[in-house]
């Protein structure tokens, strides 16, 4: 029972209060770069969620059973290489065996290696001393939180396309200021599940 509530609060925190993008500022590049259309934003976030969960599943045991406690200083190097390899493997696997999914997500995968949200979540799981199951749910929550932020923001941006914008704010500035407003709305969740 206790662990169920723990997982529920992890999910709530990851999706709403501690949102990867809007509260922790991880994964800003895809958030600003691949959010012009709702469709592509959705595919991108599905790919990110997938990679986050699989990376956590692999890096966690590596840290616990190989790196800890003597080689903890190799964490950064090992994690980023493992993530890069996982992304490659997922891409090859999908290309070979599940063609439709590859067609939908394939182009997003290479963008994910250097996505700080993925490396960030694997490291946060370690620093927050979560258990294996908690880490997996935390990664899932982070992915879903990323998805929620991407979807909301791409909706806003589709509207922006047709809006009249003051000359000096055109382009990136208005994108950032709308992101500011979206993240303002997420402040309202503060305290849930705390």
């Amino acid at each position, binding site marked *: 029972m206790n662990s169920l509530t723990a997982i529920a609060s992890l999910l709530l925190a990851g999706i709403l209060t501690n949102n990867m993008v*809007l*509260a*922790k*500022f*991880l*994964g*800003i*590049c895809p958030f*600003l*770069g*691949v*959010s*012009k*259309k709702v*469709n*592509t934003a959705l*595919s991108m976030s599905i790919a990110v969620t997938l990679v986050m969960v699989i990376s956590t599943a692999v890096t966690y045991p590596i840290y616990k059973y190989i790196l800890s406690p003597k080689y903890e*200083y*190799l*964490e*950064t*190097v090992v994690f*980023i*290489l493992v993530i*890069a390899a996982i992304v490659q493997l997922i891409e090859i696997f999908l290309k070979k065996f599940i063609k439709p999914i590859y*067609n*939908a997500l*394939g*182009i*997003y995968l*290479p*963008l994910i*290696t*250097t*996505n*700080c949200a993925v*490396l*960030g979540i694997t*490291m*946060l799981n370690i*620093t927050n001393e979560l258990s294996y199951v908690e880490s997996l749910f935390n990664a899932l929550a982070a992915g879903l939180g990323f998805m929620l932020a991407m979807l909301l923001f791409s909706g806003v941006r589709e509207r922006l396309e047709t809006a009249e914008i003051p000359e*000096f*704010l*055109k*382009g*990136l*500035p*208005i*994108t*950032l*200021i709308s*992101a*500011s*407003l979206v*993240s*303002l709305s*997420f*402040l309202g969740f503060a305290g849930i599940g705390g």
Partner: protein
Amino acid sequence: MKNKNLGYFTNGLINENPVLRLVLGTCPTLAVTTAAINGIGMGLAATAVLVCSNAAISLLRNIIPDKVRIPAFITIIAGFVSVVQMLVKAFAPSIDKSLGIYLPLIVVNCIILARAEMFASKNPVLPSILDGLGMGIGFTATITLMGAIREILGAGTVFSLPVTSQFISPMIIFLLPPGGFFIFGILVAVSNALAKRKGKDIVMHLGCENCPSRGACNLKDTPESCDEKIIKEATVNE
């Protein structure tokens, strides 16, 4: 020759300022700029990594096969980041605490991989070091400025010294995430306005031409945003 070298250095300061012109490294720019001192800490750490990795990659540029270019770069960068992380832990623990997870995340700071890919892998050592130094200082200066603005508006202090906190009640919102996005937006708007006056292009989107993952994407060089390319590719695939 001397002038040319100087050009490599000054390039990153204004014309190709990594934060405001190339729009790279947005994550740390937004995350750690709640105080000016954090900006300096993050900036210097990133500069150290940038200079070292640029030098190393430039030295190895003819040895590393094209095929494993990106993983090789990432490994080298991660190595330098870990060393910097240990040094910061040993000599400046307070900075380690305030930067937290963003310190190891310098690995995925796009500025570093982007400069490795765009510059160091194609140029000799000295220009690469100068390029790294210029970019690093440009990055440091910009995020310190942003940290100072957010600190003065949000806490009424600069470098923890009280400035306006005595007579104006600080607006805490500027220290929170929305304030980060907002101030960054305004800074880009100002830099766009200055660029326009000088007859340069304004920054419309996250430039794909600077995106470090571009090599992996196999997307051709065109002045479109990542968005447009991906939307195009996605429709072709469908």
